[in-house]
């Protein structure tokens, strides 16, 4: 509903004009050095270092998956507000291209991370034998192929057709992407749920929670929105993305608030059901995280992942500026790291909180490579879909 303003001049297509080469080189060097240090750490303590690496991998994987979710959601709902920022979601989703390769160490050393992959475990554990139809190597291989094949191909497909449209301006691309979007949502739902089960829940194959997939998804959607806000903020700070207004900031802020609440809702529901029923095979997860100093991290997670961003994001004025949103986006991305630290590390450090230096090097290393790739993607295409049929509505957005 924007028919009240008569004047519309389409925004000029934008591309990165500055030289991103030096920045990318720095990121690549940082990434390689930090990953080399991590490998060194791996030769000293393989199990701890592999968990550090799994932590870093899951951190970036969930952000990329969340960005893919936002991309397909915009097509499925035929939304108009998101057009000017959608290319950044497409870019973030496409870092899955790096993560496919980054998974290889986790595949090679899987015996050190997931107990269920060890043949000797299978021989002695009756529970694991009962779970063989799912937690078996053949089906696991099929699932891995599906997760990575789906994310990789679908993320590329959505970005590619969107870029082709920048060139020819044909509406057919929008139609095609919209037609695929409901199917993509099914593929996404299957991938995020079962990858969360395979890589995180199966760290302890005794444990199960039917809400686990949703929990991971909620964190992924929240943190990827924060990541996109930061990318948009950085681009605007350098004078790009001129059609993006405080109205777009407002919507992204509202969605960030919504998914902050959603994460808390899911996290609490999962906790309360397990707490209430008090069945040993379910409570084992929370008991591990309520022993010693892990208790304090659990409480910090509730406060930092929910209470602080929730209260911060309540006033309207905060959500209307990319500056104030950027502050909480950084905080949420930090809390996303705390969340994954809390999920993964108690498994190998049951005594209490302990930050290994490989946690940092793995995170910085993979982060450097991911950012190196992401900056390349941002520079490799227009900064927003300049010939999208809904661009006019998006530029004139009021809400």
């Amino acid at each position, binding site marked *: 509903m924007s*028919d*009240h*303003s008569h004047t519309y001049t389409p925004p000029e297509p934008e591309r990165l004009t500055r030289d991103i080469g030096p920045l990318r080189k720095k990121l690549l060097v940082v990434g390689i050095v930090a990953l080399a240090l991590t490998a060194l750490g791996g030769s000293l303590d393989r199990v701890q270092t592999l968990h550090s690496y799994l932590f870093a991998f899951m951190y970036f994987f969930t952000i990329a998956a969340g960005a893919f979710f936002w991309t397909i959601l915009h097509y499925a709902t035929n939304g108009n507000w998101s057009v000017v920022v959608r290319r950044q979601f497409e870019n973030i989703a496409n870092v899955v291209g790096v993560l496919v390769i980054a998974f290889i160490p986790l595949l090679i050393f899987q015996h050190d991370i997931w107990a269920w992959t060890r043949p000797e475990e299978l021989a002695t554990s009756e529970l694991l034998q009962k779970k063989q139809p799912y937690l078996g190597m053949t089906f696991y291989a099929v699932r891995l192929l599906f997760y990575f094949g789906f994310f990789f191909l679908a993320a590329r497909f959505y970005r590619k057709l969107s870029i082709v449209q920048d060139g020819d301006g044909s509406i057919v691309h929008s139609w095609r992407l919209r037609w695929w979007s409901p199917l993509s949502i099914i593929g996404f739902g299957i991938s995020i749920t079962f990858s969360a089960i395979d890589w995180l829940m199966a760290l302890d194959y005794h444990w199960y929670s039917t809400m686990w997939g949703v929990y991971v998804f909620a964190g992924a959607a929240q943190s990827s929105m924060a990541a996109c806000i930061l990318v948009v903020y950085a681009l605007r700070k350098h004078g790009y993305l001129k059609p993006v207004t405080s109205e777009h900031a407002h919507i992204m802020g509202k969605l960030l608030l919504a998914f902050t609440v959603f994460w808390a809702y899911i996290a609490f529901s999962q906790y309360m059901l397990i707490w*209430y029923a008090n069945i040993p095979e379910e409570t084992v997860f929370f008991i591990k995280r309520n022993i010693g100093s892990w208790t304090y991290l659990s409480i910090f997670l509730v406060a930092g992942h929910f209470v602080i961003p929730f209260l911060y994001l309540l006033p309207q004025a905060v959500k209307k500026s990319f500056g104030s949103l950027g502050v909480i986006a950084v905080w949420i991305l930090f809390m996303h790291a705390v969340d994954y630290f809390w999920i993964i590390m108690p498994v190998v450090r049951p005594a209490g909180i302990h930050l290994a230096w490989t946690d940092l090097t793995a995170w910085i290393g993979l982060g450097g490579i991911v950012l190196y790739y992401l900056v390349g993607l941002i520079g490799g295409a227009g900064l927003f879909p300049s010939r999208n049929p809904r661009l006019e509505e998006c530029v004139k957005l009021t809400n």
Partner: protein
Amino acid sequence: MAILSKVTDSLEIEAWAIGAEFPSAAAVYEAAQKVRDKGFKWWDVYSSYPIHGMDAAMGLGKSWVSAVSLAGAATGLTTAVLLETIPSVFLYPMIVQGKPYFSLPAFFPIMFELTVLFTAFATVFGMLGFNLLPRLHHPLFNWERFCQKASDDGFFIVIETADPHYNAEETPKLLASLGATNVTLIPRD
């Protein structure tokens, strides 16, 4: 003025406001900006559906219903905490399923629900309060054309005579110059 309709001919009637009709949402949107810029305060825009951006075009600023909502949320949360803690811990302490008397996880759902419920009530009734609703009658309904079209396909601007900037000579001319039709004085009774 020829534009003014018959009601204004009888001079004894006390005028409550002056009303004007506009042909489209775009026209009423642009007229609202002009009326805002003239400094009018006691006026309103009527259409059968929400026009995006009209808040800014009218210079309304931020709605403070959200403050009432926040007060409702705080009340709801406090109510739930007291309603659960006082009986479960002090009045009728009972061990249920081996849990402590003060079991926050069990209390949370009620705290959440009452917060939402009180917020919803505060928002709805706060909105009604700010709008001075409900009321049985409004002088606006003395304008027959408004009654026929406002909820159908009419777009109206109504400026009250109580507005400090209102002028019996100038204001109808202003509205007419903005492209209004059916500029009408609306009687109070």
